[in-house]
């Protein structure tokens, strides 16, 4: 398949993983080096790293939905120090470029994370998870254009590596946030993150999830993701990483046709660890012979 250029990186195909939906280190423990030979993604996006270590939310952390899932994982991670010491060396062994996803609760925290990873040549690009409230302003950074612009202006000067802003779908106007990010120097945007969702314990009638609410992902959000990617593509010129409910090559192709440059696979990897490779292959086939899709068209004379 023809390679893809993304912010100066050359990728073997357009399929990557959604941050937090594939732990390459854990997968290597489960599958061994066979994973490296068959690595399903053209770039690896690591789970959100915060400055301080986090143990994440109390269980239960999962609730299954029709064609989807609510998760309240709570961003468990070793913190910047632990990530640099333990995770980065192992992730550097992957056969694909590494994108590090970071989140801070203040602009200063984000700045320190960006500076730290700017210094590491194992890191090909940075993704900013802005789906959390700025503890200074109380506003969810990624839901407010001004907040997002302010953050970007603060951290953009700190690195020459590609900066991807990951947008939240829980916003009145994601395209406006994307435009603000581009204005303020983002190299790309990625969307969608999870939609806010909730489930009640069938017995106690209390929130099922330890975190009370969680994020909805999977096939159930596919059409919402496509609408947001399409709307954002009409507002920005920088590349887009589209994601949300991708299960098949045709889902990936929809996002690419809607304006995405790369497509990330998340929840589907839970059902099939090599889903990313399957989807990349299906996509390549679809692009060679678009008629394949026409089958139903001629299904009736």
């Amino acid at each position, binding site marked *: 398949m023809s390679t893809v250029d993304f912010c100066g990186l050359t990728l073997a195909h357009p399929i990557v993983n959604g941050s937090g939906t594939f732990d390459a280190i854990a997968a290597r423990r*489960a599958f061994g080096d066979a994973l490296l030979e068959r690595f399903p993604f053209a770039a690896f996006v690591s789970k959100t790293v915060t400055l301080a270590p986090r143990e994440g939310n109390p269980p239960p952390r*999962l609730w*299954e939905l029709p064609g989807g899932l609510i998760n309240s994982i709570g961003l468990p991670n070793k913190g910047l120090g632990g990530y640099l010491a333990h995770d980065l060396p192992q992730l550097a062994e992957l056969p694909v470029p590494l994108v590090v996803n970071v989140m801070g609760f203040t602009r200063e925290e984000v700045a320190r994370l960006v500076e730290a990873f700017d210094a590491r040549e194992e890191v090909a690009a940075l993704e900013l998870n802005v789906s959390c409230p700025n503890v200074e302003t109380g506003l969810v950074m990624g839901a407010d254009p001004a907040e997002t612009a302010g953050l970007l202006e603060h951290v953009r000067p700190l690195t020459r590596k590609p900066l991807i802003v990951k947008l939240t779908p829980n916003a009145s106007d994601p395209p406006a946030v994307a435009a603000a990010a581009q204005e303020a120097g983002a190299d790309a945007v990625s969307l969608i993150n999870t939609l806010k969702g909730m489930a009640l314990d069938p017995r106690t009638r209390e929130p099922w999830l330890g975190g009370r609410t969680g994020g909805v992902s999977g096939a159930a959000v596919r059409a919402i993701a496509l609408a947001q990617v399409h709307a954002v593509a009409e507002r920005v010129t920088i590349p887009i990483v589209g994601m949300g409910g991708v299960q098949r090559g045709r889902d990936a192709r929809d996002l690419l046709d809607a304006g995405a440059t790369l497509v990330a696979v998340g929840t589907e990897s839970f059902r099939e660890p090599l889903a990313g490779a399957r989807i990349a292959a299906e996509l390549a086939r679809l692009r060679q012979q678009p008629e394949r899709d026409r089958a139903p068209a001629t299904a009736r004379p």
Partner: protein
Amino acid sequence: MSAAARTLAPPERRRLAVLERQEYGAYVVLSCADLDGPRPQPGQFAMLMAAERWGGGDGERPFLPRAFSVMRVDSAPPTQVLQFLLEDVGPGTHRLCELREDDELWLLGPLGIGFAPPDPGPPARRPLLVGGGVGIAPLAILQDELDADAPALLGFRDAAHAEGAALLRATRVATDDGSVGHHGLVTDLLVDELDRDPAAEVYACGPPAMLEAVRALCAERGVPAQLALESGMACGFGACFGCVVPTRSGYVRLCLDGPVLDAAELESCLVPGAGH
């Protein structure tokens, strides 16, 4: 305790045909042909989903694969047959229990870390298997692998469930309603066994309340125990961070660092949301 047992899984899920479906009272046993899959260790599990129509059940579920202990491996090369013990408790298990001969399912595995081989000692300790309900599954393969027939103490709700005891050897059964065997808890049988001979090593799997009782009992008597826990899982290979259980060293992903945990690592087996 000696090194825990993990056989690596191929990263590709495998499409297996159901060779046989048997009913044991309230349970269904599915036998699947896994020709070129690696041989699982006792206590390891697999993520399963029906190859067709995994969805459209109650509440438009299931969607994610489901975790099941390997109950038994029957290797007569070139064929390897994996057996799973199923109890219909919701849309996923319901769909799998529906499968008939020649239907197919997706399997990812073997996954997780199984039971560690018995500590050679000294002091020598006899293995005691303690199971509750569908939790007897991993004890069957363990009993197959242990040299002698380790005694299996099994607890069930009622007679229909107690039929599952036929899947193991050297069993002593307890039922909640007294319809079969001892009228009471399986831990009553465990107390009895430990009173007779405390030089034992316990291997247990079952619902949280039972495991917690076993854990507390063994802790109190200084008997080493390996416990196979449960928690809700989305992926089974460490990707989602959804299956964590609290241990003395913080949350661990049960699919990756379990499902078998050393009792000493646990303050409690009552994992929120698990075992319903």
